[in-house]
């Protein structure tokens, strides 16, 4: 099932259908997956599951994605986690904010196909894999 040498990915997404579709696709690509629906769940999972990479939505119930990102990057124990923002907020100001807070990439969900999302995850991971390995 999960490739022990692949990255562990935490998907933070509140829309059940979107997270199911993402999981389905990434699972087929042999990634080790964890899911979270809220900001709080995400932070908990970060501590517990120690993911290598995180696909983070911004608009979430409770703590929003920006806050999650900020806390992850502030904590020396978790700041190595590679974060890809996967949101439907596409304003330049949102993108700038995400990048400033330490996100590696900013993806507007609606504009990419599922394969393009996976490709983007691969590209980002390839850049960071040596450090994580």
């Amino acid at each position, binding site marked *: 099932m999960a490739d022990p040498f692949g990255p562990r990915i935490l998907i933070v997404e509140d*829309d059940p*259908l*979107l997270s199911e*579709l*993402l999981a*389905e*696709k990434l699972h087929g690509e042999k990634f080790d997956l964890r899911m979270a629906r809220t900001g709080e769940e995400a932070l908990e999972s970060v501590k517990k599951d120690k993911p290598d990479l995180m696909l983070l939505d911004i608009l979430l119930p409770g703590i929003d994605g920006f806050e999650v990102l900020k806390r992850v990057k502030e904590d020396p124990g978790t700041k190595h986690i590679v974060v890809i923002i996967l949101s*439907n907020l*596409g*304003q*330049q*100001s949102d993108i*700038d904010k995400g990048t400033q807070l330490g996100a590696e990439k900013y993806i507007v*969900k*609606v*504009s990419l*196909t*599922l*394969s393009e999302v996976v490709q983007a995850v691969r590209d980002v991971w390839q850049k960071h894999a040596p450090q994580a390995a």
Partner: protein
Amino acid sequence: MGLHFNPADIQSIGIGLAAFLATVLAVFIFISARHERLGRPMWVTLGVASVWAWFGFLYHLVPGLELARDMRVVSVMGIVWLAMSQLYFAGIYLGERVQYGKLVRRMQLAIYSFGAFLTALLVADLFGTRLIVGKLLFPADVALAPMAGPLFGVLVGYFVVCTIFSGTLLAWRARAGIDSSDRNQALALFISMTVGLTLGGTRFTPWYGFDFYPLVGDIGFPLFVFATFYSIKRYHLLNREVAAAQLFIFTLWTLSFFRFLLDTSAQAMWVDGGFFLAALVLGVFLLRSVVMEAKAQRELAAVAVERTKSEFITIAAHQLRTPVAALRWSFNLLAEGREQLSEKQRALVDKGNRAADNMMHLVNDLLDMGHIAEGRFTYAFAVGDLGDTVRAEAGLFEDVAKQKGVALDVSIADNLPAIRFDANRLNLAIQNLVDNAVKYTASGGRVTVATERSGEGVRITVQDTGIGFTPDEQSRVFEKFFRGSRAVHMSPDGSGLGLFIAKTIIEGHGGRLTFSTEEGKGARFTISLPTKPPATP
């Protein structure tokens, strides 16, 4: 100066009232709407109508046969000008909806020239000839008109031709209305103006010695005034506050004016004349400020409506993004397993995929439009390789073009200057242009995308051999939501926002987006970009 109610007195009262109405309306329109498209022909028309009416009124008032005849000559000049300016108004009103051809323009020019010729004859009449306005045999408080000169019939004919011609243009305008209310409004103007002028034309009969139902002619001017008011209302120049102020000021003017006219002593005339002048000047100021206030209010309200609309669009489009992404991704997954599907199911999945893609473009276009309207469509400029950008974006359409049988040529010059641009935004603009070019070019056609240096900047042209735009469509190409009728026929889905967004983006770079086209032969869009975009705040 007592008024006795014989026919001449009735005529003088009628024409005096017309003079007063025409003047106040001309002043009102001049104050409130001289910068509007129809404002100028309206105040010019009313201005010449007041020349006709004031001198017609003076004809009855001044002492002596010679002077009275001179007044009437000038008044007749006003009639010639009224006929001309009526045509001027009709031409501009029609031009709102129809681009009429050279023939109409030449006819207009011919009519204006002949009007100038008649004016010259009338000036000669002032200096003693009697070609149009003949001799005045009886005092003006008895005679309704002087004798008709040998060419007076030509002037009547001219008036008839002008009335018919401008009536035709107004009727044409009514036919070309964009919806039923637009058509009805044009029809109301057509009827009231044409009937008004025709009835007013019956006032030529006294010149030949008989008076054709005086009342009929007198209805003419009120109808004409109705048309004017109607246009004022149609162009929303009239609102309650303005109308109330107008009524108050006009009443004040009328009362003080007639008080002045009916004064019996010179001393009283001085006092009342001064009062009238003061009321006139102050009234103009008051009207001006009320009109400006009303305009400002209207603009504020329009801005508020516009903001609500764009907020709604932004929110709705944003909310749609998540379900549209879910739809696209679902179809993506289904398409990946397409080998396991039946042929029918595969076709359905492909169609669904395309529909979901369309929906994504639509939602993104709406969101961009909302952001543009709200001033939140910002740019992040950086130096980049424009050649690569154009090649990559045009390259996205290679497959589609190939499938359609459309040749897609991309050429990039070697000597492009380094320029600063927002890659994401410019990509979208180029995509929109190439997408249209491929979409609206039939099989066997050609789309050429060329990027070259142009002075200090860069020029990108996207040329196709597609359907092009009709002359009627050309002025609306960059309008929000506008789509040409053949374009809709060829490709039913499309937001009609692509070119609007592209133009906004290019202008956001300090550049220009222009086009040339020939219906059925294709279109050529040209992006001109400066090396440096304007500084962003």
